């Protein structure tokens, strides 16, 4: 990791939520005894009547969110991502996405952020589950600025959203001039030899990997694919065409997540060799969040090694 200051994006989330709450009284928060973990204590203090805590009850958490939207509210349904998506997936599908309810689902501490609490608390299946559902926008911001914008965008865009947030410290990547748009990848660094596509907490590692690759004489393009659905197909096709090889990196199982989504586009448009980095289809062993990322090679060095191996392998497309 770099030596720059690290930020817990839950603070950016909480600050923006408070700001939105001041501007629009339709903004409400729904929790499942998760006021602390979702950092919504300040919202509760400022707007006690607009924070609904349903207790430890995820099906009701999401159903109540849909009902509040029916009543004209803009609910932010905030819960640990593992429970929100795993426990209430049918409510997300039927009550929110299929019903087209104006609900903003916020999965906190996604990926392996809960570290040694173990696989019950890891949320490494949530991209796969949520991106399979129609009419649900899925965004995983990479840093505080992108988190602020994702929350703002969700509040101001009618329809269902799933925001996948983390609690792991990340450096600031985006400046104030950055503009997040749904379904549009952001080219953080251009390059012509291969492309690294990442999102969430892996973006900063992808950038560090690009630095390491530069020392090896490889110019890597780095795409922040914050929106997993709808996917930026044009950016993926351009990456395949321009650079001829793609490495995807996600804090998620390699089954059905960002890498799978990118591969679905690549194989049907400009087939090029790919490497899909993530959790390799296992339940994680005991270990802290950073340790687990190291364990699974989800580090700058791990990404560099995969990219080097890919760069030296035969290309399907010149």
């Amino acid at each position, binding site marked *: 990791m770099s030596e720059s200051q690290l930020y817990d994006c839950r603070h950016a989330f909480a600050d923006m939520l408070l700001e939105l709450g001041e501007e629009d009284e339709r903004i409400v928060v*729904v929790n499942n005894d998760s006021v602390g973990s979702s950092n919504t204590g300040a919202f509760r203090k400022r707007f006690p009547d607009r924070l609904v805590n349903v207790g430890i*009850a995820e099906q009701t958490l999401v159903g*109540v969110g849909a*009902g509040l939207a*029916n009543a004209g*509210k803009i609910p932010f349904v905030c819960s640990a991502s593992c429970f929100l998506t795993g426990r209430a997936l049918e409510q997300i599908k*039927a*009550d929110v996405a299929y*019903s*087209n309810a104006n609900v903003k689902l916020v999965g906190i501490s996604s990926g392996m952020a809960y570290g040694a609490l173990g696989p019950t608390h890891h949320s490494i299946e949530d991209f796969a589950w949520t991106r399979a559902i129609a009419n649900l926008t899925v965004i995983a911001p990479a840093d505080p600025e992108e988190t602020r914008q994702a929350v703002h965008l969700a509040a101001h865009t009618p329809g269902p959203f799933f925001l996948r947030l983390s609690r792991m410290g990340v450096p600031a990547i985006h400046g104030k001039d950055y503009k997040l748009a749904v379904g549009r990848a952001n080219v953080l660094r251009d390059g012509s030899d291969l492309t690294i596509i990442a999102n969430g907490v892996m973006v900063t590692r992808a950038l560090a990997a690009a630095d390491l690759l530069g020392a090896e004489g490889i110019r890597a393009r780095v795409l922040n694919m914050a929106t997993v659905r709808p996917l930026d197909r044009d950016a993926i096709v351009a990456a395949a065409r321009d650079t001829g090889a793609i490495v995807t990196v996600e804090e998620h199982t390699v089954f059905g997540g960002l890498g799978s989504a990118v591969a679905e586009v690549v194989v049907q448009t400009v087939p090029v060799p790919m490497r899909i980095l993530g959790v390799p289809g296992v339940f994680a062993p005991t270990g802290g969040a950073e340790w687990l990322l190291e364990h699974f090679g989800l580090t700058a060095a791990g990404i560099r090694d995969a990219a080097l191996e890919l760069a030296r392998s035969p290309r399907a497309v010149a």
Partner: protein
Amino acid sequence: MTITAGAGQDVVAELRRRATEIRRRDLQMVVDAGNGHIGGDLSATDILATLYFGVLRVDPSRPNDPQRDRFILSKGHCAGALYTTLAFRGFIPVDELHTFMAPLSRLNGHPDRNKVPGVETNTGPLGHGLPVGVGAAIGAQIDGASWRTFVLTGDGELQEGSNWEAAMTAGHRGLDHLTVIVDRNRFQQGDATESTVRLDPLADRWRAFGWAVAEVDGHDHAALLDLFHRLPLEPGKPTCIIAHTTKGKGVSFMEDRAEWHHKVPSRDQLASALQELNDE
């Protein structure tokens, strides 16, 4: 259109006429579609007729009026009864009912709020209606609004734990503008509820979750109307009305028989069913 308290014999007669009209059209529709859930449709029909023609403050010309009462059909498989009721209440053309479950019809086998005006949320998987109803009622509570939320659940559906999560929250928050009606026909898809997983003592269970409970003959329009006009039964508590009903009500060969959960009548059976309903 809403009938006021102290309704007389003529009002009750009108509800009975509406219910028969809905039953006849629904039967025809299910036979035409070759699909549907007629047993539960018929057990819920008198509740739906009473709500839509006697209780709910809804306006078919303004189906999204923010101040409307919300009605949520948690037993979404009984969409046929809901569509028929909504049609006679003016939300959709009665002529459209013949498209029920046909390719590209907006009248899907389970209701879709984005296609059918008057539908509040998409149901089908069981145990979804009450949590959404609780959310709507909390929304009204936050606003201090006067509109009410009604949720119609099946009885077998109460085996879903999500109902009891939501019941706990409703009781805790004292949502007295929320009413659940349980269509207590005592049958679920495969068997009697009490032979599958027991629900009784059902009223005690709701009371234990902080609800005011009343039991009523779910086919007695006057009794239903009287209860609905006395809501909330206890200030500061949500209301549960356990409506004792007969699955397949109104058609003798369907009544209390589990197989009519989703069996489709033959043309001959339809003729005899319509004859019975004519004679009523």
